[in-house]
């Protein structure tokens, strides 16, 4: 890859679930001018008090290396893994999408939801809330199609990711 080429990377970070750890990670990104395209965090091991942070970021190969090295040297961080480089991985995101529409548009939104395997989790006479799970790209595509059909509000979780096969962090 060319030194100046910017690419997207999904980085998983295993951290001690202690106060301030998320602030450290976010502060690192903002302080050093790195991108955050998506960030999710939740405890994954209650007994060991460990959380997993998934960051989607972009940069040149040198910047991506820097991001990983900078993350690795934070004291409460156990492991940093670049899922994009580690091999194939699964990325999923959940979105709740509110569509307010009547008549044909309302029906059309249901049809599209069906194609995307999105579920209506709330319905009124004038609105639906769809729940859709998939890759960020799939969710983007769904949202784009909903735009002319009365799209009025979106809430997305950000990406959770894990490598395929037997490979673990």
């Amino acid at each position: 890859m060319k030194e100046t080429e910017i690419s997207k990377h999904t980085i998983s970070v295993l951290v001690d679930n202690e106060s301030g750890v998320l602030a450290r990670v976010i502060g690192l990104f903002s302080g050093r001018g790195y991108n955050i395209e998506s960030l999710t965090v939740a405890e994954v091991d209650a007994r060991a008090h460990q959380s997993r942070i998934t960051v989607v970021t972009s940069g040149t190969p040198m910047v991506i290396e820097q991001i990983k090295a900078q993350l690795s040297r934070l004291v409460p961080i156990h492991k940093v893994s670049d899922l994009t480089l580690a091999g194939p991985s699964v990325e999923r995101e959940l979105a709740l999408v509110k569509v307010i529409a009547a008549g044909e548009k309302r029906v059309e939104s249901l049809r599209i939801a069906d194609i995307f395997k999105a579920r209506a989790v709330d319905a009124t006479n004038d609105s639906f809330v769809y729940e859709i799970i998939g890759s960020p790209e799939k969710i983007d595509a769904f949202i784009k199609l909903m735009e002319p059909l009365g799209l009025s509000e979106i809430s997305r979780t950000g990406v959770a990711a894990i490598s395929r096969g037997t490979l673990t962090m």
Partner: protein
Amino acid sequence: MAERILSGSEVVLQALADQGVEVVFGYPGGAVLPLYDEIFKQNRIRHVLVRHEQAAVHAAEGYARSTGKVGVVLVTSGPGATNAVTGLTDALMDSIPVVCLTGQVPTHLIGNDAFQEADTTGITRPCTKHNYLVKNPDKLARTMHEAFHVASSGRPGPVVIDLPKDILVGKAPYLEPAQVQHRTYNPVVKGDRAQIEEAMEMLASAKKPILYCGGGVINSGTQACKLLTEFTRMTGAPITLTLMGLGAYPASDNQYLGMVGMHGTYESNMSMHDCDVMVAIGARFDDRVTGNLDFFAPNSQKIQIDIDQSSINKNVPVDIGIVGDVGHVLEDMIKIWKAKQYKIEASALDGWWKEIEGWRSKRCLSYKQPKDVIKPQHVIRSIHAATRDRKTYITTDVGQHQMWAAQHFGFEHPYEWMTSGGLGTMGYGMPAALGVQVAHPDATVVCFTGDASIMMNIQECATMTQYRLPIKTVILNNRYMGMVRQWQQLLHGSRYSESYSETLPDFVKLSEAFGFTGLTCNNPADLDDAIKQMLEIDGPVILDVAVDDKENCYPMIPSGKPHNEMLLGQETKGDEAIDSDEGMVLV
């Protein structure tokens, strides 16, 4: 082992004692009164009362940098902690191990905008290597020990422990250092063997090698500095040091080219530019070293050794990046070099040295000392000559005087040079000297400062007097913020906006008011006597030397220029305007 239950303050003091702490630099206040009470009741740990919390951190830095130990600071909550921020940032930039204890309001008041509450862990997160807020007394002892581990291992740095008052007053169990194992922070010290082998092969094949070494060598310890000297002699390669690395290799040695970077020597910078293999050891390719990255050492292969993975490939991509402690890696380098009987091709090396001698013959640091006005460089050289047979430690403030000290005072050993490199903090010099003198009561400690810098922590004169610290503060008084004036002259059409020291105190009277001797000197003929007198006085002295106010610091690589476009003062008669808008934007 049975747990010992103590008060929180007792735990803190016990942990400090068990960590081998002898002295704490601090300033009291409401939130830390329980700790001060505990300090009062014991006599294992000495407390040095500074007059401003920033100075406490700089003093701890001076102590740490001149001993290789961790410096310890104790300040109160709110303003005590915020005053410490500059010092912490300074220690972070220069990788100085410091543990800073800050008081905090009681846990139940945190977040309520209580009196003297500040979000200390929030404020100090980006300016510490790590920080802690202790909310659970069970974690107090562990946190104390862990803080020392984090501050001093890997790439050293400052660590803050924020201590709510109720934790200090309440009961807490004590754990010995040996009972604490850190879970995540265990930096790599051994370098990768295969990479080191590859690196030695690369160096052995060089025709124009250079060793470029920085503060990391000094952080690695005196043994690492010895190994560096051994390795340098074995290879016959030229060596240059960064501002932070001065003393890691003896300045008087013929293989030493002088300092590298913006105000480094001509021979150093030209050698960096023209080399074919560069070995960076504990140096981080700072912009003050590299100049314009687009033209940095364009024909070289680079090897970098650093304990901090994030220092490798940060600014400059390298061919071989070895993560490890400099001392450990040097040991392996020497072994491999010997085992493989490597030798840099003699004819190539000779040719390289001939080229270097050509650059050296420019004598880029030379100056003329006229009869009527004292040249600042001459002050540095004269003091160097006068202190040669004493154990001498030097601290500086920031500006031209700092660069002249770096250029003209030859450092033969590590730990003897304390300066604010990464942050460039005016006000560092005198408090750092306090810390050094506390650590080395019998040594000569000289602080080179400027007429502007000295005013930034002048209150520390009181600390010098109180503890009878015989620090020799030498003001290179050009009545200007000289470095600012120099840039204004070169880059801003000589418009000296706000850089003149309009009103300076009478430093003799000021010294006397603080209870020690002040001396002045403005005649070149009197300089040696003034220095002699200063060194003979048993106590603090401020020597105010009136120096040439027009002198600029050369050589200089203007911001944004490559190494081979240095300005040589003598040659250009100095003082040429730099024709570059680019330079104006850069710092």
